[in-house]
């Protein structure tokens, strides 16, 4: 964290607010995120208030306009859960109906097809093959006890097959001390980056965002970023990261500086 005298005033205010609310541990980038959110929220409110005040043919924006703007935005962006009496009411109604009897011999018990997702009209086109062909790596998903390079048999039922413990009971040995090093050869990362056209045509939300920039092609600068965000649980993560970074080059700056893990829920799609 930057020393206090070089931190701008609004960041200091934000740090103070976080401290007052009892939040003591946070990553330094949280301050930036909070400041961005504040800036965007205030700007939206003030713009709305300006519109209302011109509509009311007032010369200046006053507190009533701001209040109205806040009220309208609250219903849109910050929806709070229903009040308790409402919940108790619907709970009472719902709980009056007896539990439905279960028909025997019906196969998989699923709701009517209309409510299921069993008929997708899309297919995930992931490029696992290309990834796995190169160096056959990303062994991380195989999180078994033991070193990554060797492949010990995972504990079968009842017999912990890891070396130290065996079938001896009574020695409360925890095996957490074993550390594994996951090698991430740079060649692997380089191969991973190739061909990340992870397109997801008709799926909403998170993946839809990826599709908005079909022109984005991964370029070599992304390799370094892959290394920086080595969430190598699966190739999917790498795909997301690289795509986001490549979108960065197209100028969409606000939301993409963050790692994909940071769920910016307020950044409505």
């Amino acid at each position, binding site marked *: 964290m930057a020393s206090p005298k070089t931190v701008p005033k609004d960041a200091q205010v934000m740090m103070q607010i976080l401290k007052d609310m009892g939040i003591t541990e946070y990553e330094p980038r949280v301050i930036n995120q909070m400041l961005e959110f504040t800036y965007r929220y205030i700007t939206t409110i003030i713009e709305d208030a300006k519109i209302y005040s011109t509509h009311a043919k007032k010369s200046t924006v006053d507190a009533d306009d701001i209040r109205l703007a806040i009220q309208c935005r609250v219903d849109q962006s910050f929806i709070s859960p229903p*009040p*308790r009496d409402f*919940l108790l009411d619907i709970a009472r109604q719902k*709980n009056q109906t007896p539990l439905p009897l279960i028909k025997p011999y019906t196969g*998989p018990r699923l709701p009517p097809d209309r409510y299921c*997702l069993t008929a997708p009209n899309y297919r995930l086109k992931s490029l696992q093959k290309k990834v796995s062909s190169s160096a056959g790596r990303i062994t991380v998903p195989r999180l078994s*006890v033991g070193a990554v390079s060797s492949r010990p048999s995972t504990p079968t*039922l009842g017999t912990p097959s890891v070396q130290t413990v065996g079938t001896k009971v009574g020695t*409360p040995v925890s095996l957490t001390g074993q550390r594994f090093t996951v090698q991430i050869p740079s060649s692997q990362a380089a191969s991973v980056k190739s061909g990340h056209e992870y397109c997801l045509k008709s799926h909403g939300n998170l993946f839809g965002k990826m599709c908005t920039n079909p022109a984005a092609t991964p370029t070599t600068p992304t390799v370094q970023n892959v290394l920086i965000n080595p969430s190598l649980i699966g190739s999917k993560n790498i795909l997301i990261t690289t795509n986001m970074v490549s979108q960065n080059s197209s100028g969409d700056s606000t939301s993409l500086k963050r790692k994909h893990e940071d769920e910016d829920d307020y950044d409505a799609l």
Partner: protein
Amino acid sequence: MAAVQDGQMELDAEKETKPEILSDGTSNLSGNTASGTLSSSPLTAAPAGGAPKMEDQQTLIAVLQFLKRNKLTDSVEILRREAGLGEDQEDSQATDGSGGGKGDVDGGDANSLLSRVSITSAAAPQSMCDSPLMFMLSAAGADDQPDVSVVLSAYSQQGDPSLYQVYYSGLKNFIESVLDCHRAELSQLFYPLFVHMYLELVYNNHENEAKAFFEKFSGDQECYYQDDLRVLCGLTKKEHLKGNEVLLDFRTSRFVLRISRDSYQLLKRHLQERHNNQIWNIIQEHLYIDIFDGMPRSKSQIDSMSGSLAGEGKREVNKAKVFHGLLKEPEIEVPLDDEDDEAENEEGKPKKKKTKKDSLGSKSKKQDPNAPQQNRIPLPELKDSDKLDKIMYMKESTKRIRLGPENLPSICFYTFLNAYQGLTAVDFTDDSSLLAGGFADSTVRVWSVTPKKLRKVKSAADLNMIDKESDDVLERIMDEKTASESKILYGHSGPVYGVSFSPDRNYLLSSSEDGTVRLWSLLTFTCLVGYKGHNYPVWDTQFSPFGYYFVSGGHDRVARLWATDHYQPLRIFAGHLADVTCTRFHPNSNYVATGSTDRTIRLWDVLNGNCVRIFTGHKGPIHSLAFSPNGKFLASGSTDGRVLLWDIGHGLMIGELKGHTDTIYSLKFSRDGEILASGSMDNTVRLWNSMKAFDEVETDDFTATTGHIHLPDNSQELLLGTYHSKSTPVTHLHFTRRNLLLAAGAYNSQ
């Protein structure tokens, strides 16, 4: 008025409070009796219909008053005629509403009622009744609240704002001057009174007085309320209150205090002697005092039970009969030839043959009186594959290691590497063959723990070509080309906070911040259904022990019971004041326990959705729950680092396990219930001697009527071992069928 808006339980409470206060006090009974009887008459209507009718009545009356104020006399007449409201009824309703505030003799009190409201009010009592409603309605106009009932629960001012500090200090001095035995009990009053008085000041726009009040008295409150006070500190304007539904619920619900009769008499006498007993008004309106006869409780007893956002549980809440016994196991014939492969040693064989016969059913043929009927709730019938599973289960349990203080389990820890704080949920199948992890990047990953790889079912075209009559058809339907160690399931659009395998290992549930619960098939590894109901993050979900049903709990403060073949929930368990963070089924699938951020645990009946138990005592949000295998006890862990043990049948706390220093995210009983394992964010797994903790309970003489518990401070004796991981918080614990303890967590490099 505040109590009317709540559910039936609160209505009963209101009915009980008034008679209780009536029978004790020497105050002017006329006002109270009038409102008491009048309030009871609408309440004697049918329970289901009673509460909604009351709410509608209130709304209509509020509208009527509003029209009157605006001198729309014709509309008043029309409305009165159509709604069937009598003249006296609305007055009495109004009296009922402010009855809490007017329950006293003092003329001074009436004067204060008059003086506080700035709206024109004649000296007639009529307008005195009107004024609180008027005040609330003007607030309604300003806020444009769609929900009138919330508005009607607003604070009516109880006196001059600048004198609040005086009132509070007066009470403080009084309580400090009473006898020691009463002081502990009466000190329970401080926190709810403080919060309600502060909220009143804020709601009525007295910001400066509110701030001064807060600064002066917030330091006196108990340490375990500090988190709440910090939230309160940030609320200085009325607008801030609007978005905070936890505090809204706190305002409308009644904080429950359990005080002995002697202490209560003392308090009542003191408050009614005084000229300005605004505090008495607040107590009547916002607090529920559950009086019991007997010795006043000591400070430690009170401390162990308090801490929740709604005070303690009322006595009668925990008196309902709970069927905590287990369901009878179905009779299954075990084929003999399978046993021959397993048996290596001679003494193994006869042992197994014996257990085959009597391990299935309980030893006695009689129905356990504490067990529910088999058909109390509809349960799915056993399919052939389920019967095979049961046979495997029995075989495994014969090889089960008997654990005990001298025989501790081995612990096998599965560490997730490179998860970067993204691991948010873990579950194991019951036979420990599969492991699922929910992650903050909205994926769910399934791993095979055994050497057997995960395979998808072949496509329909390929399935046509296989020989359906062959013995190994179940292997043939699997597509070898798709074999892999792990599979990733995509579909959620937010971090996955809960995962749960079905008992038959065919399905996986995952609940996420996007508000949906998704059902995945573990044969095709695709998503089958998305259950939409919570529109807010769903913090936890769990399949029932028999499959078919599952429960989910989320930010909207309710838990929902679903069945896989209904797209809407079957039951809604509403009652918590804050988010439901943890949901667990009882082993007999008839009850659901929910832990919440309001620091209480509630036990719900699946059959009719009623809350049958409320357990208070935790000082922080509850994040883990575990039922003992025999169904009698419940263990809970929270952010305060303590594990509390509860007796479900009696509804009491029976043990407290101290030792952890950080939030406890996982609790699991061993297969026979002798050992309780707890895993926490402080990177340790601790083993506790639950057998001993429960044994001590059985022999004690319960003071079940008063519910006083005196917890022995024996955490050190019960602790059997502490096992540290280097830097990995423990997210999940699981005992295999042979009593090996598996633990899972994500390596935290910081």
